[in-house]
């Protein structure tokens, strides 16, 4: 079977579209999928802080959910430092570590 006779093949091969139009549409579709930053209430913020503190005190491995414009991501590690001035949390992962802005943390859990 030829590709032209399968799925959307016939229309794909006869479509006439300016590359600029295509790009504008791809961007438009991406923006439709954009997440808005969740507003955490005080209780939830407190719960997250206690989990982060617990991880640092007892060196427990924690998984943090980080906000992303298009996709949220998860990072697992042990919290080794909390910088209250800069509002950063240092997450150690093996021999490596990352600094995470607390504003981006929208979830935390122990497994």
């Amino acid at each position, binding site marked *: 079977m030829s590709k032209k006779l399968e799925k959307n093949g016939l*229309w794909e091969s006869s479509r006439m*579209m*300016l590359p600029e139009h295509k790009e504008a549409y791809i961007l438009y579709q991406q923006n439709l999928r954009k997440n808005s930053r969740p507003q955490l209430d005080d209780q939830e913020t407190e719960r997250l802080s206690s989990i982060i503190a617990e991880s640092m005190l007892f060196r427990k491995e924690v998984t943090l959910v980080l906000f992303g414009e298009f996709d949220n991501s998860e990072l697992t590690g042990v919290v080794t430092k909390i910088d209250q001035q800069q509002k950063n949390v240092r997450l150690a992962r093996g021999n490596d570590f990352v600094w995470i802005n607390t504003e981006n943390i929208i979830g935390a859990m122990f497994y």
Partner: protein
Amino acid sequence: MRETAERVILLADCQSFYASIEKASHPECKNKPVVVAGSVERRSGIILAACPIAKQYGITTAERLGIALNKCPELVVLRPRMQHYINASMMITGIYEEFTNLVEIFSIDEQFLDITASIPLFGDPVTIAKALQQKVLLQTGVWIRVGISSNKMLAKMATDIWAKKNKDGIFTLPKTEVEALLWPQPVHKMFGVGSRMTTHFTRLGMHTIGDIARTPLPRLKDQLRFRFGKQSDIHAEVLWRTANGIDDSPVTPETFNTPPKSVGHMMTLPRDYMEPWEVDTVLLELTEEVCRDCRRKNYMGHVVTVNCMCSPYEAPTGFSRQMKLLDPTNHTKTVFEAVKQLFYKFWDGMPVRRVGVTISQLMDDQNYQLTLFEDQIKLRTLEKVTDSIKNRYGSTAIVRASSLTAAGQAADRSIKIGGHYK
């Protein structure tokens, strides 16, 4: 595909799209014949769109501006604004998406809608089509014509053959009516049949769409194979399915998320280029654009293609040739060497009218082959810097010195989309 429930597909087509948009922006031209046309000096002086009033004078799309002006001396000729049309088209897509999430763009002025699941919410197909027409007219000033059927092919033909011609701009072509309505239509009205194919069908004794539909597929394949050779089997099946109104292709909004197969740029030159240094200038500019696109999208290409068409227009010569590079790359200088090599191997020395550069067999550019004698890191950094300057301050913020010569087209290209002004 869903076999049980019949789908409801619309094809919405914008009437004289560019001209309608311009009329909405120029209310003083409301009752005047308006066309949108490129400039004669730049060899793009053809009618891109003519409003219904202009069409009454016999002006047709793709006609030369001079001929159109002869037919109607009081014609209002407006310069195209391509970016504006793209924005308007996107706005129309947005309106369609208020009714269904299944909207597929077919061209700047035609879009498919699958409204099967929207009927319980918004009413029967004709009601939805009318609502679409009103909304689009109110928000953009464009009149849309809507073909309604159970698949994309029939919806398309419902629009082209009937909805564009009738007063309401809406036509329903049910699958059950294909034999009664579609089959008596002449062959040239069928989607995918142009003037040359019409001639072939006439020679085969097929004059109506029904003649094609009623021919058993194996026989049609044999007949076309006799004319076009072995490669025509697929074409024969496409035509046979079209004539019978068979099409199970889904409305696919996400179709543009698939990675591209090639990246290319092409341009018609404002005058014929005869000197090699002139041709080199545009070849380098095109190569730079292609490579910059690739770098932006994180691709490298393995195959370089060069297209060329030479004057005279009536008896053009030209070629389209490709070669494989030693390693995949998106580096302008490397690609340009290959482009030049190809061009000078096949150019017959005739004045060049149109050239194009494409790279294909794309792959991710994160892993690349190191070479012994080239400082690739340095080259990549240099291109990264020029790209970022262009991204920030516009594509003419930094250009090669040759682009500043009389042959250079970079500045002109940067203010155009698809060969017409933004």
